[in-house]
């Protein structure tokens, strides 16, 4: 019997072979160590993400999330939903909030769900994995399993937008949230202060407006370098991808020499808990975090 159980909502990017598969890998290792049982919501579907607003409209977007709620309720009764992807978490929370505060929307949603043979009684709580870690467990508990503190490694904790706004992590400020820094320190690393912690990476506009997005990404990486960071750490798959994969293009465009690994908090924790590079999904990083890989292999 695990000490905590959750209905797990990995989201599209955290699947085998998907853009955040390494996130999934590390989360699984991390949860194993922490004795957290996460059970995938059977047949869960995409949250629609913010970007679908134009084509989806209002109700269909909520209905997509509502389906996941209904499935979780049905198959994993009494369990809170935990998401690892910022967009999934935000999308789901928004739908929960909107449906609970708008009886018309709720009625329409139920009617639509009927088409799929589903219905909602009470929408479960929806948490981001980070909330599970720092609220349900707490920093002390997270520190206990640390076998290999990530000594003399400098990380820039990049919180970004959607794990931070509009809901954010309880008790954190929108402008200068510190939970990520605290997580880094909990596993023995050094969190460097820098002023692009919550700057937007451009989100989905990395596809549609690459120039604007990459200009913002450049600011983030530059500031991380300027403040002595060796690696960037983030809780969001989209942030991770955007900040990591466009560095080559940015170097071309701006003549920079960026080669900054961008990791998930869960990868740090897995390594600090004594996991292997593979268990932490370090092989899944496009820009390899050599220093961390060597450290892991020691």
């Amino acid at each position, binding site marked *: 019997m695990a000490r905590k159980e959750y209905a797990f909502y990995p989201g599209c990017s955290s699947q085998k072979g998907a853009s955040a598969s390494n996130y999934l890998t590390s989360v699984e290792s991390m949860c194993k160590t922490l004795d957290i049982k996460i059970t995938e919501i059977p047949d869960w579907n995409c949250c629609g993400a913010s970007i679908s607003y134009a084509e989806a409209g209002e109700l269909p977007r909520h209905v997509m999330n509502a389906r996941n709620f209904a499935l979780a309720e049905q198959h994993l009764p009494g369990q809170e939903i935990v998401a690892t992807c910022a967009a999934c978490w935000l999308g789901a929370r928004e739908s929960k909030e909107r449906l609970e505060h708008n009886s018309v929307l709720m009625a329409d949603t139920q009617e639509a769900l009927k088409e799929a043979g589903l219905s909602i009684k009470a929408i479960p709580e929806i948490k981001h994995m980070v909330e599970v870690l720092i609220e349900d467990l707490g920093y002390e508990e997270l520190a206990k399993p640390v076998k290999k503190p990530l000594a003399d490694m400098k990380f820039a904790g990049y919180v970004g937008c959607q794990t931070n706004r509009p809901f954010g992590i309880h008790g954190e400020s929108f402008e*200068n949230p510190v939970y990520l820094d605290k997580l880094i320190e909990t596993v023995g690393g050094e969190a460097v202060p820098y002023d692009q912690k919550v700057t937007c990476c451009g989100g989905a506009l990395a596809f549609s407006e690459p120039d604007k997005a990459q200009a913002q990404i450049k600011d983030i990486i530059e500031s991380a370098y300027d403040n002595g960071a060796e690696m960037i750490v983030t809780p969001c798959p989209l942030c991770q991808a955007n900040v990591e994969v466009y560095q080559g293009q940015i170097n071309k465009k701006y003549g920079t020499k960026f080669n900054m690994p961008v990791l998930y908090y869960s990868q740090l924790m897995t390594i600090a808990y004594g996991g292997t590079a593979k268990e932490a999904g370090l092989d899944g990083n496009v820009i390899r975090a050599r220093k961390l890989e060597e450290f892991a292999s020691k």
Partner: protein
Amino acid sequence: MTSVVATNQTILVVGGGISGMTAALEAAETGKQVVLVEKNPYLGGRTAQLYRYFPKMCHPTCGLEINLRRLKANPRIQVLTLAEVTGISGSKGDYTVNVKIAPRFVNENCTACGECAKAVTAEIDDAFNYNLGKIKAAYLPHAMAYPQRYVLDPSIIGTADAEKARAACKYNAIDLNQKEEQVSLKAGAIVWATGWQPYDAEKITPYRYGEFPNVITNVEFERLADPHGPTGGKILRPSDGKEAKNIAFIQCAGSRDENHLRHCSRFCCMGSLKQTHYVQEKYGDEGKSTIYYIDIRAIDRFEDFYAKVKANPNVSFVKSKVARISQDKDGNPVCWGVNTEGYKRYSNTHDLVVLAVGMEPAVKGVDIPAEVMSDSSGFIMADPKNAGIFGAGCATNALDVNRAVQSATAAALRAIQVVNKVARAEA
């Protein structure tokens, strides 16, 4: 032991700022018995912490001197400092009030000669100057403090410092055995004039108050400009003591904001317009002020004052609520936003940013009897049932000094109506 002479024809005034003093004086000068309760060791409240008043640019201490003279000349007012009301029972015309009096550790013998301060070595935060500086733990709160008696900070009681202070006093004015007292007194009517507190600027996270040393509040700026202040009246910025000549004033810092204070605090526009005068006064044409605002609320004849400031080439106005503040490598605050008049983007670097924080009623969270109603912002509202407890000054609304005094004068009459009724009944 403090003895208080009070009956159900006595008017109790809670709060010794300009509103409380006014209510007390107006009532006493009409022949009423008054007890004035103040939680600080001195009277004068927040007005005593202002350098100048708008629109006259005159000095609050000038009016304070007159009020203190009125007070000294009036035998009908008993003043209790370091005192707080802890409970009120009874009803209109017949209240019983419990007051907690904290020890001052200095008695009436004190001649304010200052020998104790010389003897003491420990230092504490200078509360009168919003903790911008340090003072000795035996102190006179400020130059015009009334009662004109020193105070020993509780932190040194039981230490060698306290003994040094006692030894240094030739007049047996220092009494280290003073204890907290609870006194109970009668009152026919109560005027609640507990004033206001500046909104906690740390809650306005985009402005990074508390993180960036060169982002300060309007009340702190008053102390910087005041010759009695921590910099002796020089406008020096906290981070490096450099002369701050290019200053940003951000209006509605917390006010008119559903995330903070829903009401408009009224005084802050005039306050910042006034403070641009300080910059001009200290630095002449080298001093530059920029006011970021939503609406300039220079109501009635204050418009003249606004017009004068607008005419000053060293003051510029930007119609914009600043979105966020960052800090550059030299510790200069940078204001980011958009001028909504014609949509012009800006990121302006300043030496110092002054947040025009709004007024939060100090009554908030204070337990006063149910018959006192407060509005959605926590200000006391006049009770239609006309009970015997009346709000005065900034406890009732966001007011400038002038209007606070009006309100206090009105409250004095409302209180007098009650005690006169009692008197007629007993006659």
